């Protein structure tokens, strides 16, 4: 222990300036970041603190990087001229001294900064302790690779050049991959992670590899082996990602529903649905538009499938987490894609709420599309679904300014005229540590100016509703700031047609927030025969209709 403290004290003496810079940057971050939130910014107007806040998102990680590099390079692990390697340093104690330094002077300030921001917003840091500790694990995704890089380089310049080299190589590889492969259905599902606790497996792979590199370097100083090991980390993450997307893992996370299960999906025709569609502006933003940007249309064709749920038990929700399309022509090879992520939510269609209607889309190679479109094709869709049921609700009148949704968020109702944008009203919320569990927020709008026309219940165009959140079980999501800010609801928007009276969210409007809890996840599928692929973007004239959700 004596040796650990002796080396630690030496490092503190040597790096006092870097420590000071890092801690001041972190403290400034805690002070400035709340001032960058849109609601606060709008209320306070443009201030330098907002600019400082944004700048600190760069300065704080840079100060950590500098501190880590200088710390490790104090006793360099690469080379054969170092002073310390012929002195009675015991490597476990040297490593422990460095770990102690990182814990006390990087991790603890980071934890305190996060707790301070939570406290400022009105959340008790102690009640979010698991999330705060999980944030430490997540921020290790920054610290560990930096420590690993410092351990395989002899000085700061070499480390910076290595980082630059890695970025250049990654940029080249991704540009080559993008130019030769392009965006397709197979790589757009990168976000779908059926393993509980999000990307924990990937996180652990990165931490384990970097940890192994660091220990190997301190124990043996085998720079070449350590560099190779560090270089393997991205490939190992890809491997884990590949394994996580394997059918076996997905079947485990989303058990298959047997054919005899009353949940099996079936199809209904367009005509049956026409009446329901009347007066509902389902395609105001989706119809004819694309879900894919920056793709080479000469190489890829986009196929859209319209989905509608029916038979969902009252109050229940089904979230479509992912889907997997397979196109099978009468003759020739089928086109089978991987699982693609989705965030669509189906609720009870009888409410005439268009949240029940969704379009999913995917890409197929142009050559496959040309081959398939002149043939009789069947489409098979596998769905990974999560059932949710209401857990708790909040009913309140929309205040003007800041308000709290207890245990959920700290929010601000913003009159967007103050933002000098469109004539709508928005609700911005700050959530502690992560996007919360799935919830809906529904509010009644007012037709015309807020001060003239009160809300008119019964008018189908007045309710406005939005889904927000997910069922990621992890207690925190990656970020330097512990708060996530999002607009959870905004008014209907600006319409240039003077004949249409605009609707607005107004102070005093009734608001209902309903949060859901996960009931179960399952996997099911449907088959659509005689699938017509003519026209583009291909909007498939089929409705997917869900059967009973409960026996």
């Amino acid at each position, binding site marked *: 222990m*004596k040796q650990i403290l002796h080396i630690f004290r030496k490092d503190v*003496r*040597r790096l006092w300036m870097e420590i000071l810079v890092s801690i001041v940057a972190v403290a400034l971050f805690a002070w400035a970041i709340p001032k960058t939130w849109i609601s606060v910014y709008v209320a306070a107007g443009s201030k330098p603190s907002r600019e400082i806040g944004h700048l600190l998102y760069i300065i704080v990680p840079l100060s950590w990087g500098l501190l880590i590099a200088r710390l490790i390079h104090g006793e360099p692990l690469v080379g*054969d*001229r*170092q002073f310390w*390697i*012929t002195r*009675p*340093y015991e490597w476990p104690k040297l490593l422990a001294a460095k770990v102690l330094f990182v814990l006390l002077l990087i991790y603890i300030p980071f934890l305190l900064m996060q707790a301070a921001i939570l406290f400022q917003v009105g959340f008790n840091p102690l009640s979010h302790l698991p999330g705060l500790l999980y944030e430490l694990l997540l921020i290790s995704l920054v610290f560990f690779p930096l420590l690993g890089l410092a351990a395989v380089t002899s000085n700061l310049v070499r480390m910076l050049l290595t980082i630059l080299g890695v970025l250049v190589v990654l940029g080249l590889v991704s540009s080559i991959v993008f130019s030769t492969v392009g965006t397709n259905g197979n790589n757009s599902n990168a976000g779908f992670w059926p393993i509980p606790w999000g990307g924990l497996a990937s996180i652990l792979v990165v931490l384990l590899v970097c940890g192994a590199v660091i220990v190997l370097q301190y124990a043996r100083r085998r720079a070449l082996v350590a560099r190779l090991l560090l270089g393997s980390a991205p490939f190992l993450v890809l491997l884990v990602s590949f394994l996580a997307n394997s059918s076996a893992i997905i079947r485990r996370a989303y058990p298959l529903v047997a054919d005899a299960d009353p949940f099996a999906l079936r199809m209904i025709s367009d005509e049956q649905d026409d009446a329901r569609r009347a007066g509902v502006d389902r395609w105001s933003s989706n119809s004819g538009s694309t879900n894919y940007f920056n793709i080479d249309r000469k190489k890829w064709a986009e196929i859209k499938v319209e989905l509608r749920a029916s038979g969902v038990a009252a109050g229940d929700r089904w979230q479509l987490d992912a889907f997997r399309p397979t196109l099978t022509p009468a003759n020739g090879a089928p086109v089978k894609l991987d699982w693609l992520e989705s965030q669509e939510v189906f609720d009870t269609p009888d409410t005439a709420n268009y949240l029940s209607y969704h379009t999913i889309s995917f890409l197929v190679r142009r050559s496959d599309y040309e081959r398939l479109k002149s043939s009789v094709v069947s489409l098979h869709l596998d769905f990974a679904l999560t059932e949710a049921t209401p857990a708790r609700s909040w009913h309140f009148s929309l205040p003007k300014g800041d308000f709290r949704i207890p245990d959920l968020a700290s929010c601000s109702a913003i009159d967007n005229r103050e933002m000098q944008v469109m004539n709508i009203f928005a609700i911005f919320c700050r959530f502690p540590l992560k996007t919360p569990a799935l919830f809906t927020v529904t509010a009644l709008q007012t037709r015309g100016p807020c001060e003239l026309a009160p809300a008119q219940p019964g008018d189908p165009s007045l309710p406005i509703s939005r889904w927000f959140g997910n069922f990621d079980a992890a207690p925190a999501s990656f970020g330097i700031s512990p708060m996530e800010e999002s607009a959870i609801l905004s008014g209907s928007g600006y319409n240039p047609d003077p004949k249409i009276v605009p609707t607005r969210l107004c102070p005093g409007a009734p608001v209902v927030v309903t949060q859901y809890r996960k009931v179960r996840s399952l996997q099911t599928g449907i088959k659509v025969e005689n699938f017509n692929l003519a026209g583009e973007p291909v909007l498939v004239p089929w409705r997917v209709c869900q059967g009973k959700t409960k026996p």
Partner: protein
Amino acid sequence: MNPVVRTESLQKHFGRTAALHGVSLAVPEGAIYALVGRNGAGKTTLIKLLMNILRPTTGSAYVLGGDARRLAGKEFCSIGYVSENQDLPGWMTVGAMLEFCRPFYPQWDGDLADRLVAQFDLPLERRLRQLSRGMRMKAAFVSALAYRPPLIVLDEPFSGLDPLVRDELIESLLELAGESTIFLSSHDLAEIESLASHVGYLEEGRLLFSEEMSALSARFREVTVTLPETAAAREDLPAAWIDVQVSGAAVRLVHTQYQGEATERQVGEAFPAARSIVFDPMPLRAIFLAVAKSERSRTRMAQANANARTVKP
């Protein structure tokens, strides 16, 4: 007596380049062993292998009775290592560096450290990076000698230093000579001649000899044979006679196995018409030059033979 440093067929390759070819040596306890050779001969590589800074390709090395590949941590309490190539913590002052080193060594002798600092006239408050090369070496010496290590390993410790500094360092070393074994490398023969008790000579990674200085001086003689008339080149001389030079009626050679009268008789028989034969003791520098020239000519000849074999169909 167990050797403090021992190597057995030690080899080190850097890619395809062989830096050391099967070096075997032993340094007895209490010796001042000087490893000499030209720049690039492999001295630093050998020392780095002994200090476990590099790992051998084949062969083994033992330091203070233990495998050099396992040398780490506390074992370095018994070894004082100073190298001209070592990166000292330049941000530290001399005083801070010595204070930092002290707790690592239970046997740290504060009085000795103070004495050496005073003897070397070291400015304790100056940062190491601000010191001259000589001053930095002095500071490194103090940090390596103050705990009275049983083994002191010095890699080119006097290289590029002015004579005054060099003498100061040698003086400090000699003070510890009784209680420590000293292993040092140098390419300057003059500086080690007065210091070393044992000497090893490395030439292109090969250890040509390794023995006590007194034995080395005793077995090398410069032989000058004066003949009655102009001498012809002789190919039939024994292998132990090296660096044979013919100049008019004089033949000069170096006898590497001088054994008094027996050797004088042997030379007399080889040159029966000699008017005179003189056997002169050789300074270390002359011994090394003769051995180096002989080795180089032997290597060239072997290379030429190998090339000739390659060219033949």
